[in-house]
């Protein structure tokens, strides 16, 4: 593409260079650009190539430095002439501060949109000149549709026509009908999930699993098993299920998290694992447990100074590089507050809104752990409930209830904890699921009803 053919308002080579330069200098800028641009947004073919190569290096977890970029290009038979090297050097030299990246990204994106608009105008002008007899109504309708798409696509929005929605609805029902039939015939009634397994059979049945785009809130009082629930979920999804999961912890150290796993996966009491009071054969069981962890999809990121903005950048990075299916934030109450003037509930609302958008944009499941007040209520509960797809509350069953309830005696193991489904966008809510929480081993498990 010769730039002389184009009006200068349709491209901005300097902005393209600055975006690429930022990608070569700062990881945060690289993530931003990777997520918001495509190679086709660059006017210069060389810049488009540089963008593609830099993105590809980043996807493979290779730090995209100037030299790595040259080596990558040369291995593909490009950047072999001195003119390309000159241009690459110019790009690398024109460094911008990473906090300015949004400004330059917008400039590149805007020019790309203008070029699409220019192509639209040219084509329609040509159409007018070529076709003498034409259906005016249809020509205008087509142009309008194309122009609307040009702007609508940019804001990543979609309006379903009645026909679109009807087709989508029928396809979904048909898919479920066929699946139900197959289950009845093949799997003898065990329902396959729509999303990731929850780690509890009853919760699987009610939710059909945690689905991409879902925001799940789990509330519990201090010391009532938030982290154990998170790690039980992680064990189900990342260790047994081999899906990739990112676990952000704001309170615990790397060592504490690692030790917890030793107990959870080996079934040996946590206190004994922690103090080292174990025998030789238990040590070998623990060794096997850590070998399972090492082959799992569990990525841990202890981060005491976590902020909502940081979760966005970390999640994007792990989605790009590790293709994570889920992120767990343990827990939101300890996130850093950007604006000290905001009330606690306003901050929580801001956090959950960000996490819901993140889940939808990255098509991952996000689980946020929140702290319940001593009376079991939740700060800013109404707003949180509005944003999330599934709200769960975890609490111990009182001693009195355990002793008096005839219902609990019908289970194979005596339940001592319960998960209350406070909200479920896709199904039943208001349900209380009894479970057993082995505090010594930090293990949660299903309880099964064995008598009527």
């Amino acid at each position: 593409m010769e730039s002389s053919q184009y009006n200068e308002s349709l491209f901005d080579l300097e902005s393209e260079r600055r975006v690429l330069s930022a990608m070569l200098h700062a990881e945060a800028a690289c993530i931003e650009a990777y997520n918001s641009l495509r190679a086709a947004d660059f006017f210069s073919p060389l810049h488009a190539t540089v963008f593609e190569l830099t993105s590809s290096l980043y996807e493979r977890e290779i730090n995209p430095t100037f030299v790595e970029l040259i080596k990558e290009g040369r291995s593909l038979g490009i950047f072999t002439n001195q003119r390309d090297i000159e241009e690459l050097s110019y790009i690398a030299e024109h460094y911008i501060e990473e906090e300015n990246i949004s400004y330059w990204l917008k400039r590149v994106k805007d020019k790309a949109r203008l070029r699409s608009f220019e192509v639209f105008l040219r084509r329609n002008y040509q159409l007018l000149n070529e076709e003498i007899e034409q259906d005016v109504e249809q020509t205008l309708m087509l142009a309008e549709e194309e122009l609307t798409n040009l702007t609508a696509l940019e804001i990543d929005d979609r309006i379903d026509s009645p026909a679109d929605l009807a087709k989508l609805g029928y396809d979904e029902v048909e898919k479920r009908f066929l699946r139900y039939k197959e289950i009845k015939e093949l799997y003898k009634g065990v329902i396959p999930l729509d999303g990731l397994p929850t780690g509890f059979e009853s919760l699987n049945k009610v939710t059909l699993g945690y689905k991409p785009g879902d925001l799940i809130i789990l509330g519990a009082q201090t010391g009532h098993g938030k982290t154990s629930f998170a790690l039980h979920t992680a064990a189900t999804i990342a260790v047994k299920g081999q899906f990739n999961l990112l676990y952000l912890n704001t309170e615990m150290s790397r060592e504490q998290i690692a030790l917890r796993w030793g107990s959870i996966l080996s079934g040996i009491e946590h206190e004994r694992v922690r103090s080292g009071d174990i025998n030789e054969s238990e040590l070998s069981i623990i060794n096997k447990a850590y070998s399972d962890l090492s082959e799992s999809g569990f990525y841990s990121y202890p981060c005491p100074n976590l902020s909502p903005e940081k979760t966005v950048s970390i999640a994007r990075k792990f989605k790009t590089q590790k293709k994570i299916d889920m992120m767990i934030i343990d827990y939101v109450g300890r996130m850093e507050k950007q604006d000290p003037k905001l009330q606690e509930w306003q901050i929580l609302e801001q956090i959950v809104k960000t996490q819901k958008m993140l889940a939808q944009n990255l098509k991952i499941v996000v689980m946020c752990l929140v702290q319940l007040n001593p009376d079991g209520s939740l700060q800013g509960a109404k707003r949180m409930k509005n944003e999330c797809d599934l709200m769960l509350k975890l609490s111990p069953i009182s001693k009195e209830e355990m002793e008096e309830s005839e219902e609990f005696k019908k289970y194979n193991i005596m339940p001592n904890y319960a998960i209350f489904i406070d909200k479920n966008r896709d199904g039943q809510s208001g349900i209380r699921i009894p479970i057993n929480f082995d505090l010594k081993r930090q293990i949660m498990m299903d309880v099964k009803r064995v008598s009527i």
Partner: protein
Amino acid sequence: MSDIDKKIEQIYISSTKMICGLNSLNMEENNFLISLLDKIMHRKADELFITCLKKWQAGGWRQDIKEIIKASLLPLDLDDPAAVKETCMLISDLLNYNNDGEND
């Protein structure tokens, strides 16, 4: 970015450009040199390895020894610490062998 970092960055870019422009080097030699430069500029180079290279560069070695060292350096993956360590040992052995040979 501080002024010093900017200066270092400029040296890094200019040096890379200069190495890429050396027509006397083949692609393999070129890639080794820019990879080494990358490691040094980003402070990720193995110190022992750099000491070995400096010793080699000080000169005075037999031609066959120089060629063996060069042949073992060119395919070296600088991101592989075990391979770097192994190559360091090889270079040291060769240079010692060269000295011993001369003393004999």
